[in-house]
């Protein structure tokens, strides 16, 4: 392993807790209740899938956990930080240090090479250039893209781009990996490749993973727990039995 493991909050302690979380949007006269009183708890090191149809509010919940958005009411506490009470500056720091994010559309910056994309969070963290390059190489090596570090995103396949996005999400060694439909733009084979990687980080680095998806099969295959949302409300929260692949990875490691 080239990247040092994150020092996770002790496994089993509460990493994320939301209480009566609401996010309402006003559109003219109507109020859209994107998130409407969601209370969930995610333990440190857990791999949780947020499931629901489009418009169910799963992405909104993820954005609230990511500190990209603020709740209308209720609270999200991540590792003892009440996100609603953080200033804009503190929220930015939280996103920088605590959260790693991957998106359906990869969200790499087109004008930058892979290496530059991956080390961008380190720039915001004011890490020295030398150390930045070392860490970026390590992260790219981890996702198998070291050879392509000087390529631009447009020269890469979707799977490669998502791997680069994963490398970027990992570079600050966050405790939380938030994934918004990470396989949505990928074929099933490549999607599986990415998901294996995510689970590997969850296992090896002890990262807490929250993944938004509408593919129930994907969730069943990788997540330890599935939370179902509809119309901004939590409708089901149930544990999931580990699947065959899990055993394979463990076997491969020993």
């Amino acid at each position, binding site marked *: 392993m080239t990247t040092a493991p994150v020092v996770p909050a002790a496994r089993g302690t509460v990493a994320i807790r939301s209480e009566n979380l609401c996010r309402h949007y006003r559109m003219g006269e109507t109020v859209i209740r994107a998130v409407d009183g969601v209370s969930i708890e995610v333990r440190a090191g857990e791999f949780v899938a947020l499931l629901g149809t489009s418009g169910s509010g799963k992405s909104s919940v993820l954005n609230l956990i*990511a500190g*990209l958005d603020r709740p209308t009411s209720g609270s999200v506490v991540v590792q003892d930080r009440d996100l609603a009470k953080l200033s804009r500056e503190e929220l*930015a720091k939280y996103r*920088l*240090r605590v959260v790693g994010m991957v998106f359906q559309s990869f*969200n*790499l910056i087109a004008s930058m090479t892979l290496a530059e994309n991956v080390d961008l969070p380190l*720039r915001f963290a004011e890490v020295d250039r030398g150390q930045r390059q070392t860490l970026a190489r390590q992260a790219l090596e981890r996702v198998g893209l070291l050879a392509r570090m000087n390529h631009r995103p447009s020269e890469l396949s979707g799977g490669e781009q998502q791997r680069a996005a994963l490398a*970027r999400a990992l570079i600050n060694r966050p405790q939380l990996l938030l994934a918004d439909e990470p396989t949505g733009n990928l074929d099933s084979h490549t999607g599986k490749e990415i998901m294996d990687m995510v689970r590997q980080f969850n296992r090896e680095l002890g990262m807490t993973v929250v993944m938004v998806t509408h593919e129930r099969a994907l969730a069943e295959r990788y997540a330890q727990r599935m939370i179902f949302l509809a119309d901004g409300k939590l409708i089901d929260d149930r544990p999931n039995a580990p699947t065959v692949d899990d055993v394979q990875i463990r076997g491969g490691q020993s």
Partner: protein
Amino acid sequence: MKIPDLTELALRNLRESLLRNSLTTMGISVGVASLVAMLSLGIGLQQLISRRLVRSGLFDTVVVTSRRDPRGMGRDEERNGPAPSESRVLDETARQEIERLSNVIEAYPDIRFRTELRFEDKPHMTMISALPSSAKANDAFEGMQGAFFSSDTAPEVILQKTFAEELLGKAPGRGVDETNVADLAKPLLGKELTMNYAQRVSGAVQPSAPVTNGAIPFDNSLAAASYSVVSREEKVKIVGIADLDPESMRGPIRAKVFLPLKFAEGLHVMQSVDLSEVSRAASGQPVYSSIGVRVRNPAQIQAVEDAIKNMGFNTFSILDASRGLKQVFAVLFAFLGIFGSLALVVASIGIVNTLVMAILERRREIGIMKAIGASDADVMWLFLAEAGAMGILGGVVGVVLGWTIGQVINLGTNVYLKRQGLPPEHFWAVPWGLVGFALLFAFGVSLVSGWYPAGRAARLDPVQALRYE
């Protein structure tokens, strides 16, 4: 974000939309160039004029007169100071004292007398004055025909053009149709003039006849305090003919013929002051009707003048004229600056436009940066850095452009001047201070223009920004 990272990212972003950003930067360049061109023209003209003024000897010269001298120029002070009869005499001791004042280059006696000069046996009455050797640098002797005095004691004269015309019997030129100095020089240079003058000789000339009864008996003790006046003749050679009038400020007592100072001193010409200061004139200690004081820098005129006034003399300088000139230049600079900056204002609107467009285009990118941990400040600084980089680049190009425009105009003007038979001049000056100011100004203007777009970028809601395709 660290400044080197910020700069690197800003430059990389600028390169991404190369055409648009180049055009914006070019706009700034043109703005800066116009500012630099305007201001350097102003500075150049000011330098040209003050150079001329300094060389004219008008602005770095203080004329000192005794309060005892009724011709004194500073009449106002006379009423406040001690009574003329009690105030100091402007003699050699006073001259040396003045010369020792700080910032004084030299203090030379103003020897001037009206006398007769004969040229080819025709008499001409004129005012003659003596020039110190430092007057060689005087602007009035630029473009002079012939040469300056070969030495400070040489029996040589320089003629002012109008007197030269008089000698040759030409009508004094008027307006544009003045006679060319070169035409005057040919028949006059190297020729001799005979100068008649009254020499003051210390001590009484022994009376040739015995004192008759009833007359005041001749007292030997008076001999020391008396002098005689003897008529003398001296031949002087014409070495130069000056086009301009170096004594234009002297009014009615301005001289048309100039002698070297030491030579003139040696003549012991009877001066009008000798009459009022009989006792001193007789003692052999020279007494001067006025002294010219050259000051190191026109800016120090006031201090030197005050110091001399404290010594009990009257002073005169054209300081007030130069003050008025400074005001004129301040107004000129303000105008040139305002017109020059107008183009920069237009250019700064270009920056605002470019950055607002960039924010629209890079909305998603801003969202990504925020999602992976960029703070509002990071985004704000990134856009400000881009604006600042355009400002500096535009500033540098603009300064070079402005300088080039200046050089071209300078060259063109000098070609024109040369055709008109005039000496070349430097109209254009781009001092380093102006370069620094222009760069800072361009940088400042671009930052101010970048402020609004950068603020907008910083406040973007990341969720909205990420949704943007």
